């Protein structure tokens, strides 16, 4: 596996893992977060309200205590009374007690102060004679201020008291709670992330990786190694389906390889016999062309020899000539013996058995030439008298020529039907192509030896002459029907044998 492949898988895996984690974790975290914020606000509001109620209660108690002290004991007792009323209320950050002229009525203590903070609230309370509460913000801190009037026994307002209650403690508590929640959520998020990562890795990415490996392996035609099926879930079913597909593909591939081998073998066999036929034809042509003049020369020499009296010295010369011609003759004869076609075995043949045997090769070649081949050779035709190999050669030669003519993207049909000629029963094979056809001037030449339209070196020009020879020795006939642009039809007719 190359580095790029590994990177690709890794990137996909990380992407999927990250996406799953985000999809799984973000919604709950958002919901919990929003809920937490809302809940915190409500809590804070409640705490503040309670605090304010406390502050009001304390202020009211202090107000009563101060009025009573002023009435019963005099101003000197005020500080002690006030301290007593405010004890244990640590949230009270500041108490101010002023008279109508805004002068402090008690000295500053730990709990009371006479600083010169805003006095607007005190003034308002003294004027209206009504208690009043509000929140004052200074920076980040907020303070609840509650003012109450101080009345003499006559009911007249003689001063006012202000209690300031800091909310810092509540804010601190809330902040603490928020941090606590954030911490818990973070811990939860991290552990869920890790857990999801592990689960995704184990349950999803590992089997997916195995599947990816399997597919790559299959694509490269690697060794058979079915994916292990360790689970019964969807991924297990994917692995199962993949294994089935892989085994089907392997079977198909094996069949294809086998078919190719069969086609190749048949092709070689046919090419061999075609080569032999061509060589035989060449050799016998040679024997005829050379043999006849040789015969005449040797005959003339023999004739002279017979006419010369015994003892004539010219006889020796003639013997030499005859001897040398005998040598050439012997050479030609041995050449002929080497390439002489095997003796044909003429038998009654069902044409479909010959065509069926060639079908693999023909279909294979048709695919290679991008030609559509239609074959219609019924099994119930009469038999013909022929040699199986020769008939095979005739079919191959004519159909291959049709492929050549029809390629590319043309159609070739091979049809066999029962047909009578001159009141003799027989079978005709009709090969039709959608090629360019043969010009009329050439139709008479195509059966002549060494005539070929193919580039030099590609065709021997002997395919059709050999077909014609074979068909002739079988007492049949071969004909061609073609017009330029119309395609070509070859018809081979062979006589039927006696009924078996």
């Amino acid at each position, binding site marked *: 596996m190359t580095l790029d492949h590994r990177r690709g898988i890794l990137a996909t895996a990380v992407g999927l893992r990250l996406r799953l984690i985000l999809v799984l974790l973000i919604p709950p975290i958002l919901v919990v977060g929003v809920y937490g914020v809302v809940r915190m606000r409500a809590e804070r509001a409640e705490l503040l309200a309670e605090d304010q109620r406390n502050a009001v209660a304390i202020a009211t108690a202090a107000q009563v205590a101060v009025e009573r002290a002023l009435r019963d004991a005099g101003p000197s007792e005020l500080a002690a009374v006030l301290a007593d009323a405010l004890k244990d209320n640590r949230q009270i950050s500041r108490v101010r007690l002023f008279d109508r002229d805004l002068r402090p009525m008690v000295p500053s203590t730990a709990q009371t102060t006479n600083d010169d903070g805003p006095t607007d609230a005190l003034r308002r309370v003294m004027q209206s004679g009504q208690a009043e509460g509000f929140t004052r913000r200074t920076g980040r801190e907020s303070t609840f201020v509650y003012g109450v009037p101080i009345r003499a026994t006559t009911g007249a307002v003689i001063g006012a008291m202000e209690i300031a209650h800091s909310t810092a403690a509540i804010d601190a508590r809330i902040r603490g709670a928020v941090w606590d929640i954030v911490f818990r959520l973070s811990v939860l998020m991290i552990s869920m992330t890790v857990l999801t990562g592990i689960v995704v890795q184990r349950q999803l990415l590992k089997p997916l990786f195995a599947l990816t490996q399997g597919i790559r392996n299959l694509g490269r035609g690697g060794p058979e190694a079915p994916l292990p099926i360790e689970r019964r879930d969807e991924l297990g079913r994917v692995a199962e389906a993949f294994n089935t597909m892989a085994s089907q593909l392997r079977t198909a591939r094996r069949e294809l390889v086998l078919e190719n081998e069969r086609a190749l073998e048949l092709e070689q066999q046919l090419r061999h016999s075609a080569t032999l036929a061509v060589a035989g034809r060449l050799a*016998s042509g040679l*024997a*005829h062309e*050379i*043999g*006849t*003049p*040789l*015969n*005449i020369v*040797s*005959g*003339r020499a*023999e*004739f002279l020899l*017979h*006419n010369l009296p015994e003892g004539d010295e010219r006889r020796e010369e003639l013997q030499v000539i*005859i001897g040398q*011609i*005998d040598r*050439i*003759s012997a050479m*030609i*004869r041995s050449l*002929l013996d080497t390439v*002489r*076609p095997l*003796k*044909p075995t003429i038998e009654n043949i069902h044409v479909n058995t010959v065509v069926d045997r060639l079908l693999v090769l023909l279909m294979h070649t048709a695919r290679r030439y991008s030609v559509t081949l239609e074959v219609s050779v019924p099994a119930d035709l009469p038999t013909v008298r022929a040699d199986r190999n020769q008939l095979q050669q005739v079919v191959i030669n004519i159909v291959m020529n049709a492929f050549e003519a029809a390629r590319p993207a043309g159609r070739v049909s091979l049809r066999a039907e029962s047909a009578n000629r001159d009141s003799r029963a027989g079978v005709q094979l009709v090969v039709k192509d959608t090629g360019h056809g043969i010009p009329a001037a050439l139709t008479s030449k195509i059966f002549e030896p060494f005539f070929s339209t193919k580039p030099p070196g590609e065709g021997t020009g002997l395919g059709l002459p050999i077909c014609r020879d074979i068909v002739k020795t079988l007492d049949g006939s071969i004909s061609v029907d073609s017009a330029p642009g119309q395609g070509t039809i070859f018809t081979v007719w062979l006589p039927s044998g006696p009924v078996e």
Partner: protein
Amino acid sequence: MQIERRTEGTVLVIDDDDAMRRVLRDFLQRDGHRVVEAANGEAAVSMVEVESIDVVILDKEMPGMNGMDVLSFLHRRFPSTPVILITAFGGPHVAEESFRRGAVEYIEKPFRLSNVVDRVQKLIDDAP
């Protein structure tokens, strides 16, 4: 001095090659036979009707009516006239076919002329 008793006869030579016919004629005539010639199958077929033939020498490869056709015809028409078939396109199956069609001798080219002449002589001698 050899003393030979030869029976003389009429031989029909059928061959499209002129020189071949001539050399056969010279050989046969030297032995005292009468020779008639035909340059093709069609001429031969008409000639046998008017001539009285003892032996036929027939070339298998000829344009038009070929040797095998002529052989079949002769055998049907004159079953008792022996025919020697000569061919360059030979082989066991050609030999078999010639005998099946009625030839008495089968000779492949190239051959020694004296052999052919000897066989002709033998056929004429053996004739009833």
